[in-house]
């Protein structure tokens, strides 16, 4: 078991090292997320004032869109010089490889989310930092759920031709519960009278979603990656 996590961590560390040498994914994803927020500001700011409750939706849509971009890129890299084949041929459990890739994506998305939250707090005057613990819990559980489904789908789409188009097509319908729960919880946090019971409910639902889909993904990664 300890070996399993060690291998996963090695894969994560490899991804972090590749990233810190170029900073390509962090910079492009951050830029994209920021422009997403800007696009929404055109729709949701009327006469200089943001529409109430818009901030929660903007945060989550920016997370979902920039997350998709990062997922596609993270696996595109594995295509160079058949790196993915090399990874899959390593005499280790494939589930560990999946977990390693997932962890790297979650870390990257966490960096992007930190910036998105700060940006939205400033530009939309949203009291996102009123309950930082609850917000972090929502974002963490939501990101793990989104990235779990995304990592599996991006990995299995590596072999297909139109993967760029197919990833969002497959990913969004399956992760709708994550987005509904994430937006629902954040709206409940940002209300003038926060409904913490509802926030706890959505976080619990996200934890359950993470548990079910992480189990399913670890279980199906081996067969879907076998040609």
């Amino acid at each position, binding site marked *: 078991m300890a070996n399993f996590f060690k291998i996963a961590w090695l894969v994560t560390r490899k991804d972090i090292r590749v990233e810190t040498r170029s900073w390509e994914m962090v910079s492009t994803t951050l830029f994209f997320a920021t422009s997403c927020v800007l696009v929404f500001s055109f729709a949701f700011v009327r006469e200089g004032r943001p529409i109430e409750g818009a901030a929660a939706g903007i945060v989550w849509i920016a997370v979902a869109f920039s997350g998709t971009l990062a997922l596609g890129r993270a696996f595109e890299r594995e295509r160079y010089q058949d790196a993915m084949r090399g990874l899959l041929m390593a005499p280790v459990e494939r589930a560990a490889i999946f977990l390693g890739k997932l962890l790297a994506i979650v870390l990257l998305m966490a960096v992007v989310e930190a910036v998105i939250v700060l940006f939205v707090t400033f530009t939309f005057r949203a009291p996102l930092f009123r309950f930082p613990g609850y917000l972090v819990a929502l974002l963490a559980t939501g990101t793990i759920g989104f990235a779990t*489904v995304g990592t*599996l*789908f991006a990995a299995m789409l590596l072999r*297909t*031709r139109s993967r760029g188009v197919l990833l969002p097509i497959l990913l969004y319908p399956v992760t709708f519960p994550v987005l509904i729960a994430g937006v629902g919880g954040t709206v409940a946090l940002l209300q003038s009278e926060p409904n913490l019971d509802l926030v706890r409910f959505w976080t619990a639902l996200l934890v359950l979603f993470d548990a079910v889909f992480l189990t399913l993904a670890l279980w*199906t990664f081996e*067969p879907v990656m076998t040609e």
Partner: protein
Amino acid sequence: MMAMSTRTFGGLLCVAGAMFITAPILIASAPYESTMGLVQKIFYFHVPSWIAMFLAVFICGFSSAVYLFKEKPAADRLAVAAAELAVLFGLMGLVTGPLWAIKAWGVWWQWDARLTMALILELIFLAYLLLRAYGGPGSEKLSAGLALFGMANVPFVYISVNVWRTIHPTTNVLPSLSSSAPGMFGPFVWCMVAFLVLFVVMLTARVRLEEQRGRLEQLYLALER
């Protein structure tokens, strides 16, 4: 089901046809619903189409799991047939629903829990078909993974849209129908059975088509060697 003989298949097809021909007569003779009147009769086709869709979703999900872990091609053929039926019956529900809604609620679409859930499931299985159509070789396994995830998603979609809806304005949705009106119950069961027979007929035909396609592909490959 796969080994169903042409005779049984033809018989079932006739049964389905006869039931659908008689269904309008039964529906016309059923009592009118007190508040909605004539438009409520969409119910007899609307509800069975959703039930058929859910049946298709679970058949697709389970046979995809079997294909993924046991690598049986027959399971994949069943999965693709069921996925197409899920989209087809879902589309029927999505067409009949707004037709009913515009008369009963005064709007085409309501962001009600059930409607949202139906739309999400329809999208998941449309994505399945898109993946199969444009994924290229090897997309069978990938779509099996998607179908498994789609099926596991059903309870989450159900819970999330139900709670999400309660913090939005709600309308008086679907008054209870079958328990209070025995005159409507008979035609409803008739239509339900008609839809299920049609479902079995279409599923069998589609699975057979997929079998023939696979055989043809093998013959082409053998010819090229």
